[in-house]
């Protein structure tokens, strides 16, 4: 007996909407599915002696995948991702995305100069004279500020993308 195509579609939709199809999904959104497999890969890539909570691990995984998705959508150049597959590739793309966005956003006017002026003791030479704020020193200070800004910016960017893609984190028993 031949099964009519619409019956197949109906069964796929109905059965696809329950349990087994979403097993292993820890977060989902528009065009975004984050699985326990992704989470495991994220955990493997985390620094040793560092045990994140389930929530922190899911958020880190979602963030990595969202940043990677944006990197691809924006064609962010990323040599580090070449030849990589799966989650490793997503991690490389995510890093490139954050770097590119930080470069785009830049620093507030006066950030470098105010850092220099507020840390007088740090910028005195052995004779007690001020080390001039030349281009090299500006770059060192800029990198220092960006290093501290990166996690702050990443958190706000994560929130922005979670809203953009309407991502929700599933309860422990699945979505």
């Amino acid at each position: 007996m031949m099964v009519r195509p619409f019956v197949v579609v109906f069964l796929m939709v109905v059965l696809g909407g329950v349990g087994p199809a979403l097993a292993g999904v820890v977060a989902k959104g528009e065009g975004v599915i984050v699985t326990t497999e992704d989470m495991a890969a994220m955990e493997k890539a985390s620094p040793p002696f560092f045990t994140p909570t389930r929530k922190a691990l899911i958020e880190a995984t979602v963030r990595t995948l969202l940043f990677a998705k944006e990197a691809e959508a924006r064609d962010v150049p990323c040599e580090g991702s070449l030849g990589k597959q799966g989650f490793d590739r997503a991690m490389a793309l995510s890093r490139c995305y954050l770097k590119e966005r930080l470069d785009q956003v830049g620093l507030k006017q006066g950030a470098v100069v105010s850092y220099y002026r507020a840390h007088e003791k740090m910028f005195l030479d052995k004779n007690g004279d001020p080390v001039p704020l030349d281009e090299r020193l500006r770059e060192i200070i800029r990198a220092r500020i960006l290093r501290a800004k990166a996690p702050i910016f990443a958190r706000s960017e994560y929130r922005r993308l979670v809203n953009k893609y309407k991502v929700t984190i599933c309860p422990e028993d699945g979505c």
Partner: protein
Amino acid sequence: MSGRWLLAGLLALLLIGIGAGCARVSGPAVTLDRSVSIDGKSGLLETFRAYWALRTKGDADGAFRLEAPYAQEMVPMQRYRNYIRLFHGARLVNVEIYGVDSSEAFFSTCLDCRAVYEGKGGGEQRDFRDCWVEVDGSWYHVLNNPLIFPQSGDI
């Protein structure tokens, strides 16, 4: 007809005046010791007053805008809000500036201050050093609490 317009104009001016008055932040009284002079530091005292008024009011967002630009980039806003909340319990009523230490090379000025807080158990005094830097003609506060804001420190 012109009388009505005049009346409306006067009312509008009155409302604007009231609004501006309300927008001013009342804060602690700031006094300068006789020996202290901050002449030549245009705008520093006004910014100092505004900053401590905002801090006293617990207005973290307002005070954050007067922190040095580098700190605005390096300090997470939520941590700053918690920090302001921490010091909001006691009411700062008076700040006396009794010392000034300026560095011309670094466009910075540190003020030695004595704060008087009003608390349940009567007044309490605390001495502290409050540093400021000038950038593009404006003064900004220097956050100096390595325990709470370690990220804004060493290079």
